[in-house]
């Protein structure tokens, strides 16, 4: 390991912080994919993987991807709730990997809610 210079410290911190962001629940965006038994049966695991891939490939530093249990609307699974700090949470339903990619591009990075995929705006908040 090369010895750090003053200016190197920030780079090490940024890189390491990506991993520890999840632990503090501190990020600008939290994407919770609902993964109860209904969600899993509907294919939620592929959706989570797609979300995690987006974070990895885009080298996003302030986005947390996590899972939770069943949200109650089993017929519209796979579902995900997107919470952005300072905004109302949005529930996205009937997801596919392609839709997840779009949500990342449009909503998380672009700041525009993808209305045609959304069920509701402003339901329960976890964050």
């Amino acid at each position: 390991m090369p010895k750090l210079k003053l200016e190197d410290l920030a780079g090490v911190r940024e890189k390491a912080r990506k991993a520890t962001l999840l632990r503090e629940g501190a990020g600008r965006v939290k994407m919770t994919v609902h993964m109860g038994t209904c969600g899993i049966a509907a294919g939620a695991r592929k959706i989570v993987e797609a979300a995690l891939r987006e974070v990895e490939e885009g080298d996003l530093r302030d986005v947390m991807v996590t899972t939770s249990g069943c949200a109650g609307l089993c017929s519209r699974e796979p579902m995900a709730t997107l919470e952005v700090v300072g905004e109302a949470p949005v529930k996205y339903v009937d997801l596919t990997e392609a839709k997840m990619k779009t949500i990342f591009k449009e909503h998380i990075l672009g700041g525009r809610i993808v209305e045609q995929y959304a069920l509701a705006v402003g339901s329960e908040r976890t964050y």
Partner: protein
Amino acid sequence: MPHRMHLMVCAGTGCVANRSPEVRDALVSEIAKRGLQDEIQVVTTGCNGFCGAGPLMVVQPDGIFYQQLSLKDVPHLVEEHFLKGRPVKKLMYVPPETRTPLPKMMDIPFFSRQRLIALRNRGLIDPEKIEEYIARDGYTALAKALSQMTPQQILEEVKISGLRGRGGAGFPTGTKWEHVIRAEGEPKYVICNGDEGDPGAFMDRSIVESDPHSVIEGMLIGARAIGARWGVVYIRNEYPLAVQRLMIALDQAREYGLLGENILGTGFDFDISVSRGAGAFVCGEATALVSAVEGRPGEPRARPPRLAQHGLWNKPTCLNNVETWANVPPIINNGGAWYAQIGTEKSKGTKVFSLVGKINNTGLVEVPMGITLREIIYDIGGGVPGGKKFKAVQTGGPSGGCIPNELIDLPIDFESLTEAGSMMGSGGMVIMDEDTCMVDVARYFLAFTQDESCGKCTPCREGTQLMLDILTRITEGHGTMDDLEALEEVAKVVAEASLCGLGTSAPNPVLTTMRYFREEYLAHIQAHKCPAHVCRQLNTYRIDPVICVERGHGCGVCRRECPEKAIFGEKNQAHRVDASLCSKCGTCVDLCHFNAVIVE
């Protein structure tokens, strides 16, 4: 790919002793069995402070707290929560008053009422990975101190903060640093006192095990301010996990160029060596500690000269406690004024207390100075178990004193505790209830200090033995009123004339218990009774004939098991104890299913 869930498994000494590494290994293998290993990261952290509830784990990012985990819980937990998203209620914390589990860590009063500065990284990092310390702003204070501040400016921030030594004496840290800066001699040294000898105190252990870099960074900043080239961490050998994690941390810091020569390319040189204590309480005293590091017997010496002028190898030395050093990086990052806003007028910042004894929530708590004892005992500690009445809290370890119920609204700071006859000490808080005998408590602490007395000065060596003898006789029922007078007189001499803090503070438990619980001493001496029934020689054991016949039907278990054959009776008839034969062992009380044996 990043993970979607982090399992923060506690591996502080308490949880490790309760087999948390086995639980962690079981989690890792169960998660692999389910194919979840790429999604879920299992992290081993240091001590979370809630040691009575271990082995424990926090699931992030939701902050769900699980306690008292065992191997058999793992498969169900992995399937229910980590796969299907249903947190497991039966593994959650249940507050004593209600029966509803509290899933989130930050809803549990024990955690939510704390304010973490020294323990800022608690449960959030793997102490064996320096990158995780850096991720939480680790070493940014050092970078700031080296590149944007002069040594004088660093000193100023520490002075403004009002930080006082956390090892027990509460000496203003900025002032101490200034003394060392002004002293003449090269090289200068900084020392970290990690001896933590007070029984029941484990704050420093927790900090070194969970966040060793916080201490290293503090020492680096101090060394820069003072102009020291070398540092020593003196840590007791009875903390093997802390020693191990500290060594790993030092190696990693050196690899990254944060210790050694030309640190961060700024030309600053500093390194730290480790010296292990060999089991003497007195070596927590600054001059005795230095003597031990030099390889000489651990005995204190007279002061002046202070360590600041003539310390390690007779050079100017700055010795501070583990917790004091851990507070330095946040003070530099946020400014001394930020720290000074917390706490009271004369006692700034927060303090880590170890809450032990007769309390529901046993563990470590960091709270702002000025919080009341009542809040710590009831809101954070969850009160006294078994519905028993709170009697006293012993603060400051064997050098401290007992504070009774009347003073429970006392705000905790250096001055108020001293006025009440106790002291802050290193932060130990032993809670006592109605079943504690205060005379026995005094005797217990005296037995400790007498044993640990190094023997160099007569007042301590002879005085502690004398006090212990008197107290032992009182607890055995042979005390007299003259003994009380003698006890007070000897106590005053030892307090005034001893060479070091061990001796001067050894009489504190005696003096405070005599001040606030004098009636217990009188009961032992005049009535030959121990009100709490702890001093067995003063107890009388009597069998209630009605209970024995109606409920126990004269079962005879006590008669058969009594080692002195002091119990007489026939089957179906009331048994009785012959007091002249009774050795007061209490076996009959323990064995009687019907609670027919009354202790008086």
